[in-house]
């Protein structure tokens, strides 16, 4: 009988340990809720017309890391950080910049962008900056679920989203530079 009791005890204890044995046995985190950042989410392609009138697809410019930036001319902080973004892209040849203006009227966006072009012609016309206006919010609300600005998606060469940056940022900071590197 004693032998049987010992066997039962051993089975009980080991079954408890076996049932709960997983790779995170000593971890204090709840692994089920562990987040997988953007979960290798595919970016979604869309057509857009550059303000110069040329037609593109997002997919066409994916040979570099894309900064897909949503902004509006009525948004003060968007206007404040716009030159910094242009500067960042200009200095880093691995980046392309697509600024999507969510203004109600195209004229409002154009007005601000022409000021930018006049002040920073080399940065706007370096071939890696695309400017477009989002008529009827097809890109912002419908495709990327963006309602508030500024919001910036970072898309890699495999056309996967690997980060999203909300609100205005110090684009020169180390933190942001790190986030732009996958």
């Amino acid at each position, binding site marked *: *009988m004693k032998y049987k*009791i010992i066997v*039962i*005890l051993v089975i*009980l*204890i080991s079954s*408890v*340990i076996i*049932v*709960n044995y*997983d790779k*995170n*046995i*000593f*971890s*204090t*985190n*709840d*692994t*089920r*809720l*562990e*987040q*997988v*950042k*953007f*979960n290798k*989410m*595919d*970016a*979604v392609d869309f057509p857009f017309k550059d303000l110069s009138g040329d037609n593109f697809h997002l997919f066409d410019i994916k040979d570099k890391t894309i900064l897909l930036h949503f902004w509006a001319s009525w948004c003060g902080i968007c206007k404040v950080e716009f030159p910094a973004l242009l500067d960042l892209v200009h200095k880093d040849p691995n980046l392309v910049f697509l600024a999507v203006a969510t*203004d*109600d*009227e195209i004229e409002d966006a154009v007005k601000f962008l022409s000021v930018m072009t006049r002040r920073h012609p080399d940065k706007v016309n370096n071939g890696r900056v695309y400017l477009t206006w989002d008529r*009827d*919010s*097809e890109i912002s*609300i*419908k*495709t*990327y*679920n*963006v*309602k*508030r600005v500024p*919001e910036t*998606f970072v898309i890699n060469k495999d056309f996967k*989203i690997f980060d*999203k940056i*909300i*609100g205005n940022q110090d684009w020169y900071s180390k933190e942001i530079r790190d986030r732009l590197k996958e």
Partner: protein
Amino acid sequence: MPSKLFSLLSFILFILLSIPAMADNKPFIIDTIPIQHEGRIKPLSTYSEVLLLKTYGKKSFNEMSSEQFLTELLLDSKNALKRPIFNIANPDIVHLLGLEYDSNHKYNFIELLQSMSSRMEMINKLNELDPAKLTGSQSQLLNLYINLMEYFEIARSLSLVKYEFEINNIEVSELLNVNMGDKLNYLDMIQRKARYKQVFHKLREYSKPAQDDILKIGEKLRVLSRDKNAKIFRVMPAQGVRKDNTWFSPWEVMNMGEGTPETAKLISLWTDLAVAYRVKDEELWNKSYLEIIGITSKYIDPNKTYFEKIYNSFDLFKISTGLYLIALLLIGLYAFSGKLVILKVSNVIIMSALIIHGLGLLSRMYIMGRPPVTTLYESILFVGFISVLFSMLLEYRNKNSIGSLIAAFTGSFFLFLSIKYVGDGDSLGVLVAVLNTNFWLATHVVTITIGYGACFVAGLLAHIYLIQKSFNFQDKISHNSTFNNMIGVSLIALFFSILGTILGGIWADQSWGRFWGWDPKENGAMFICLWLITLLHGKLAGQLKPIIFAYGMVLTNIVVVLAWFGVNLLGIGLHSYGFIDSVATNIVLFIIIELSFIIFIISARQLRKKNEV
């Protein structure tokens, strides 16, 4: 062999009888889609039960399942808000709200809202008071108001994807660049807000019918935008924008900057689901439903949510409670008739109940990914399981019906007790931080609770021994066998209690930085060990007579109950499961019953001695 066959057949029969018909995955019912609620990701099936229990007090509403009910609330809220879903048992509240109290006392949202809105001043005042100072009726009224608001919030959760706008004016359709007769939702309208603004500014230039339509659209947009605070329906997985893992409601996604192409896709799928529900398009429903499950499967294993939905529909513990009770009755019958076949049948029933009980525990382990001993409710279920298991091992060894009696008794007792502590919400709750370590939870807490279970079995054996001894039931050999079993089980109890206490110390050393801190629960665990050691030592050294040892073992039950439940009453210490008012009364009642039992046995024995003299 025939008896084995009989046992097997009875077992299969019981399992078949116990399993309710498995619900098919019917169209137009949302059940397995995950939601984040109270910190845990669970199927909407579980959430729907929680919601219905809170308002209606049952897990189904008339002929509707909780899932059907939730689906209607989400996708056809106009209809759902008219259903008498609020069960108000307290007539004072009904009168306070100016409603008529009848035997049915079920009220719908609209009538309750109407009477509440004229009494908002009173509700606001109650809300400002200290909850501890509220009377029963006052806190019930406040709860009713909170439930009412939650119910409405759920009803409005999907208002942004439902087609609320129909453009029937040719002029307006041209202005907004949509087709005549098109149905649009809030998001479609928001996309066209620039066009709408232009139109609105030139309102006077259009015909009267067009003007009316334009104004109506504006008013509807204004009303709908109020729903942006609907936060409960968190079915949009955290996209990784923020560091925490909070999921979002469809309304919140864009407002919180959580929008991604994936959330856009999910919102369009919810739109399709709403359309499919309205026009009863089964194909579209199934397609969008499966796509939603497909997307969310990246965040939670869909098998787990499906399993939880099935677990919800079975109510395994209720089934095993019933079986334990039947077995208890049969054992009573066996005591009178002495027919062995009745005992055998009851053993089969207890084993079936034990298996179902165990399946329930295993299911909870699978769903939660951790041992089933994280709340008071779960520890009761687990102690019940251990007690039945030990008792049936005794029965297997002795075959004298005592093990079966204890098994059926403890099984039904603990499962009944658990109903009291299940609460009215989701019993699969999220852990308090200190328990959030699977390894130690599995070893320390499980070992300690096995110790509790063994203590109860030993305690009950002591009761039986005392009754046998005092009333001369059965012969001396049976008395001795019961006594020896009691010693054996108390040794097992001591082993697990000491092991559990030491493991607890090691865990405490790792998480709190000290092995021992004289915390009430630690003292309780040590007290169980000391009590058992004292008794066993006294017995082994020959200082305690068997009858005194048995009295001591009856008192063990009190010691365990105090260590297990009593600690909560102190309201201090690191182990409190949370204060529960009714526990105090129940503990006092339990102690009185156990002490009365001892007094009863002592007086019965003295009376017998007198008579013998």
